[in-house]
């Protein structure tokens, strides 16, 4: 069993590392400019399926743009939105969860009610609602997903802090005259790191799938920026003539999310098995 956990972490880690490398080195890895339109070679099948344009490994779209290059560049948006949202939502959620758990009473009640209101919305629906009113854009999508996602961190951190604050090392620090914020930052929060890492990993998978969903619905980033979700949406109209327009971007989303979920699963089993009931 132990070996399986490390295997999951390794495979998931490799896939995530692949995404990071793809995103960072997109100009080096992409064989073509993702925006370059060659109308004479539109809707070409992948080269290995006998497509006319031998250089287009995964074929071309309705405007003659190279699918592989667009997928490589599309990873940038997934990575940017995924990482930024996870970090920002983590900061907000951890702060509120820590304060609520540590100070309790009224603070906990207020944070609890706010959490309940946000939990009352299905996650993606809240993001759809925000995007409907905020409009398309990378920053807007990060805001929408962050607003919908901080609650998970808040709940987990609050629970952890509630139990940690009763531990002897916290009592000892207080007895030595340490202030509350010092105890919280120096002694309590570092002990929530394992749980937060696991929550963040799963959150990254959910955020990437949500960004793709929003882009698919036309509510994500502006149309000229290549994203996996918008590629899928555009490809739908040509599904019978050119199925590769939908198959490959979908595969990219699936493999990425599968890898990150695998990593999260492995990390949870190694770092914090008791989270199994919560996530």
């Amino acid at each position, binding site marked *: 069993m132990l070996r399986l956990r490390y295997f999951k972490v390794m495979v998931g880690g490799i896939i995530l590392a692949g995404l990071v490398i793809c995103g960072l080195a997109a100009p080096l890895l992409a064989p073509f400019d993702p925006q370059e339109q060659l109308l004479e070679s539109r809707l070409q099948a992948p080269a290995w399926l006998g497509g006319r344009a031998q250089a287009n490994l995964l074929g071309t779209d309705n405007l003659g743009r190279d699918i592989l290059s667009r997928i490589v560049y599309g990873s940038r948006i997934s990575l940017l939105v995924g990482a930024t949202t996870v970090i920002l939502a983590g900061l907000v959620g951890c702060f509120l969860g820590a304060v609520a758990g540590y100070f309790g009473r009224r603070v906990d009640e207020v944070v609890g009610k706010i959490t309940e*209101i946000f939990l009352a919305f299905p996650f993606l629906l809240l993001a759809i609602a925000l995007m409907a009113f905020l*409009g398309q854009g990378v920053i807007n999508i990060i805001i929408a997903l962050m607003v919908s996602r901080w609650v998970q961190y808040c709940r987990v951190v609050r629970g952890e802090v509630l139990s940690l604050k009763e531990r002897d090392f916290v009592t000892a620090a207080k007895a030595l005259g340490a202030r509350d914020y010092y105890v919280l930052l120096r002694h309590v929060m570092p002990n929530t790191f394992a749980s937060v890492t696991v929550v963040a990993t799963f959150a990254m998978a959910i955020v990437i799938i949500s960004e793709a969903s929003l882009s698919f*619905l036309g509510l994500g980033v502006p149309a000229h920026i290549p994203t996996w979700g918008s590629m899928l949406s555009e490809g739908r109209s040509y599904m019978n003539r050119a199925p590769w327009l939908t198959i490959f971007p979908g595969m990219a989303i699936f493999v990425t999310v599968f890898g990150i979920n695998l990593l999260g699963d492995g990390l949870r089993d190694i770092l914090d098995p008791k989270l199994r009931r919560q996530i």
Partner: protein
Amino acid sequence: MNTIVRRIIGAVPVLLGISFLVFLLMHLAPGDPVMLLLGDDATPGEVARVRHAWGLDQPLLVQYWQFISRAVVGDFGRSLKFGEPVIKLIFERLPATIELASMSLLVAILISIPIGTYSAIKRDTLFDHAGTGVALIGVSLPNFWLGIMLIYFLGGQWNLLPVAGRIEYGIEIKPITKLFLVDSLLTANFGGFWSAVQHLLMPAVTLGTALAAIVTRITRSSVLEVMRQDYVTTARAKGLSEGVIIRRHILRNALITVVTILGLQLGALLNGSVITETVFSYPGIGDLLIQSISVRDYKLTQVLILFFGVIYFVVNLLVDMLYMLIDPRIKL
């Protein structure tokens, strides 16, 4: 019973919070919704008239009060684009979404409970690892991609199932409950029933897959936990057959948790219904939401989001309370 009353009273501020959040959304929109509706050519007089008619010239809190006081009597106004009362539009589409969500739930149960239970019983075998792996794949599949692939293969390439809508063109079902499956059975319209089932299959599988994956994992861990209990050991010591132990002692107890999780996951079905209905052009409230957003009908969008939020919250509350009634050991 006191706990239930307390829970209902505690829900009031949350419902007010939901309504305030939804109300604020309209004011988040960049630009003036009136200008968006009237266009740039509108005269200042026209703009002022519409602003006054919508109450947008009032202070924010007054507007919220008006919004709430109308909402509690079911007056949500008219859709800006469709011209009909918003509540009528929602209730026309709601049965389709209820039917889709129910069918998805059924698909999820039929897949997840047998696989989850068998995985737990055969723990650490090849079946268990395969089951866990399939569940992980299910969670990771983007449902819009799954839907498109089903349309491509089952609808397009193999021509096995219809790819859009609720029923075949030309088949009429007499509306009683507006749930096609129920109405067709009540009126003995078996052709209509079969057509409705065929139209529901692909969307239900698309929507139910992620839920099936989650519930498989929960069933597995819940069964494993019950298997460790003393009463299961006692049942074995008494010499009961493995089948009886699983059916009477393990599954009955493990399924309490599973049923609760299924109830709580109804929200996930609402989430997914927006995407699934868009992919299959299925005429439910999820599809209506995306339509309202695309035509910038802020009024309809706002009420639909409020509707989704309230339904989700109330369903969760009911499941919590039901759970407490089924298992009195639970204190909320």
